[in-house]
């Protein structure tokens, strides 16, 4: 080789990135380029020329084991006259460090004989690293893909237009489609239309922020059923930053929803029972009825405010923990009560209670045992009402009734005796005067006749008065129990009794439909007869009496009215009408004792009603009276009954 050519060759060799060196038949370095020096950390070619390159740079394997020359492929290139290539070995630098290398070795020939070899090589550290990285990354990807593939969590990726990309078995299971079916599938079908709208919000957020969104929705499976799912959706952008694909992790939350629901229910039940507890607790505490809870051995464990107050204590603490005997006037009573409760579960009765200050009062109590879920008695609940006032009222009422009853009997007795004793002399007077009349009628003068008439008349009136007084006194004591009474029958009876009077006065008596009421029938006949009789008595001279009876119904009473076309009564006399012995008209024009209306009033009042009148002098009068409709409940039925009830 000429110098010039050598120079050119050296320039070329030194400008390459590859490291190049030559070796002779023994493997000694014949030349090396700049890159060789650079890569292997030598300063000078002279350091290498003539030295065995293998010994210098290829002496060991990476793991530190010796790499014999004979094994070296480069040497083989010489011996076997072949090109060799390797990329999985290392070269050793001058400083003892190594680097992965890729080399090619070419045998050099001259005149048909191998003279040595030329080796070119690269430091493939980077490449190796990249390869390693790649491999690692490949490995990782495969592992990840496998994990994803095998995962029980459904995973799916789709393109914006809905085309399915990647998905796993679990996704197939979730959606009910096979792998093949999903490969050519519009994923948008999976979402029910109503959800598509709703999830738009999330997708917009995702596109805007790029942050994964998490929400619940439903999928329609292949068989048409809906499955509730939870999704975590991610966005993949392309290089231009535009949304390219969505991928998501799905979770079938059917069970969760069931659990949720059950939990909700359970929570609700708990809340309700909590609420109930709160309410019953409140009810217990704030009730105006004194209530307490007592343990089975008779110790007070809870009381409400009312209990505290009723027993005259100041606070709960004074009572809680005390034996129940403290609040009974007769402590032994409670043992008997407890036994009853333990046996029957219930005790209702009255007992004498003792207040804090020692005073006693009567209580009506209801005590019952409190049971746990197994039905075992765990405590005693007691609800006690102070009935002292009621008992007093009852006693008073009873005493009042007894007095009233006695007073009515006294009245009747008085009236009876009075009338009986009065009747006797009256009878004498009347009878003998009449006898006189019969015997001596034509033998006396007109004056005597008049005298006799007046005497007889007087005694007759006296007799009527006495009869009426007796009737008046008997309204309560001879009153019968109220019974179903047909007022039309009562009307008939009354008018029949007045037959004579009706005939004499040429009267017309009519009635509207009349009700059936609860009343003392006989007394009602008395009332009606009296009122009609008055109408007949006090008629106007020029007109025949016309009487009309009618009835009106209200919510709680009947109003009966008896209307006449008689002489009428001035308003100023209304009140006096109903008392005993009033006198309004000249007596010889209108006979009658005047006690009739007092009797009516007494009877009506016995029935719990009222009586009054409206009248216009010269036109007529209407008497009204009421009968309450719920007389079954009125105590005025009979005095004996009333006393019995007490």
């Amino acid at each position, binding site marked *: 080789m000429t110098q010039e050519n050598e120079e050119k060759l050296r320039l070329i060799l030194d400008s390459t990135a590859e490291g190049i060196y030559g070796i002779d038949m023994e493997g000694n370095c014949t030349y090396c380029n700049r890159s060789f020096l650079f890569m292997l950390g030598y300063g000078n070619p002279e350091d290498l020329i003539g030295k065995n390159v293998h010994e210098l740079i290829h002496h060991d394997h990476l793991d530190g084991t010796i790499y014999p020359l004979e094994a070296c492929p480069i040497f083989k290139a010489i011996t076997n006259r072949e090109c060799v290539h390797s990329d999985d070995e290392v070269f050793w630098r001058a400083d003892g460090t190594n680097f992965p290398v890729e080399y090619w070795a070419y045998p050099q020939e001259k005149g048909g004989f191998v003279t040595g070899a030329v080796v070119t090589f690269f430091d493939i550290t980077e490449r190796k690293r990249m390869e390693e990285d790649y491999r690692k990354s490949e490995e990782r990807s495969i592992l990840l893909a496998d994990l994803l593939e095998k995962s029980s969590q459904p995973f799916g990726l789709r393109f914006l237009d809905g085309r399915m990309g990647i998905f796993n078995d679990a996704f197939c299971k979730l959606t009910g489609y096979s792998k093949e079916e999903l490969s050519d599938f519009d994923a948008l079908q999976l979402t029910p239309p109503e959800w598509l709208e709703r999830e738009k919000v999330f997708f917009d957020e995702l596109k805007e922020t790029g942050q994964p969104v998490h929400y619940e929705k439903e999928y329609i499976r292949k068989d048409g059923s809906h499955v509730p799912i939870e999704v975590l959706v991610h966005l993949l952008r392309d290089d231009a930053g535009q949304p390219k694909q969505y991928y998501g992790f799905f979770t079938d939350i059917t069970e969760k929803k069931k659990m949720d629901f059950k939990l909700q229910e359970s929570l609700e039940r708990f809340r309700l029972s909590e609420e109930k507890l709160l309410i019953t607790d409140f009810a217990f505490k704030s009730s105006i009825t004194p209530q307490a809870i007592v343990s089975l051995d008779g110790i007070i464990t809870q009381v409400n405010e009312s209990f505290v107050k009723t027993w005259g204590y100041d606070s709960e603490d004074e009572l809680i923990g005390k034996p129940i005997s403290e609040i009974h006037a007769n402590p032994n009573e409670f043992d008997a009560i407890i036994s009853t409760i333990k046996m029957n579960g219930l005790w209702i009765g009255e007992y004498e209670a003792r207040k804090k200050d020692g005073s006693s009062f009567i209580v009506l109590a209801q005590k019952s045992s409190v049971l746990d879920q197994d039905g075992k008695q765990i405590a005693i609940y007691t609800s006690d009402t102070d009935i002292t006032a009621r008992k007093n009222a009852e006693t008073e009422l009873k005493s009042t009734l007894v007095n009233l009853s006695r007073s009515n009997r006294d009245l009747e007795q008085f009236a009876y005796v009075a009338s009986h004793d009065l009747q006797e002399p009256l009878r004498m007077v009347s*009878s003998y005067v*009449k006898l006189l009349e019969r015997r001596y009628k034509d033998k006396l003068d007109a004056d005597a006749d008049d005298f006799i008439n007046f005497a007889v008349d007087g005694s007759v009136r006296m007799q009527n008065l006495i009869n009426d007084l007796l009737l008046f006194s008997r309204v309560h004591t001879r009153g019968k129990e109220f019974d179903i009474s047909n007022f039309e029958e009562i009307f008939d009876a009354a008018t029949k009794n007045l037959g004579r009077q009706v005939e004499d006065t040429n009267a017309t008596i009519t009635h509207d439909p009349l009700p059936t009421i609860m009343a003392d029938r006989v007394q009602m006949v008395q009332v009606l007869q009296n009122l009609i009789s008055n109408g007949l008595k006090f008629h106007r001279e020029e007109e025949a009496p016309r009487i009309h009876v009618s009835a009106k119904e209200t919510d709680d009473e009947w109003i009966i009215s008896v209307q006449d076309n008689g002489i009428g009564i001035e308003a100023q006399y209304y009140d006096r009408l109903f008392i005993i012995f009033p006198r309004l008209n000249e007596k010889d024009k209108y006979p009658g004792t005047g006690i009739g209306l007092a009797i009516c009033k007494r009877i009506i009042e016995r029935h719990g009603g009222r009586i009054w009148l409206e009248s216009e002098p010269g036109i007529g009068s209407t008497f009204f009276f009421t009968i309450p409709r719920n007389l079954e409940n009125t105590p005025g039925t009979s005095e004996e009954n009333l006393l019995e009830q007490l």
Partner: protein
Amino acid sequence: MTDDSTMRPVDILLVEDNPADIRLTREALKENKIVNTLAVALDGVEAMKYLHKQGKYSKVTKPDLILLDLNLPKKDGREVLAELKQDNNLKRIPVVILTSSQAEEDILKSYNLHANCYITKPVDFDQFLKVVNAIEDFWFTIVKLPPP
């Protein structure tokens, strides 16, 4: 009047303490055509004596009818009635209780003691006349009295 009417004069015993009433009864009886003898006992004791023909009454005839008031001195009319109706000799005589009492107890008791009937003296004289006539009519023209 039936054809079997008792046309003989009848004897009535009136047991009554009130003279005015006695007189009234007598006058009322007078008005009737039936002939009768009215004997009067003023109290229960006298009445029994009369009926037992004791003392001054030894010669009297047994009455055909007794008009008996209830309220009598010495021996009450109710006692007289009881005694009468238990006496085999006297129990057949019809006893008409003629009294002013209207008391239910008196009425019931009298019937229980076998009074033949009970009549309340009316206050009105005309009525009284009617009653006495009715008694006479019924007991002396319609009814068969026990033979003496």
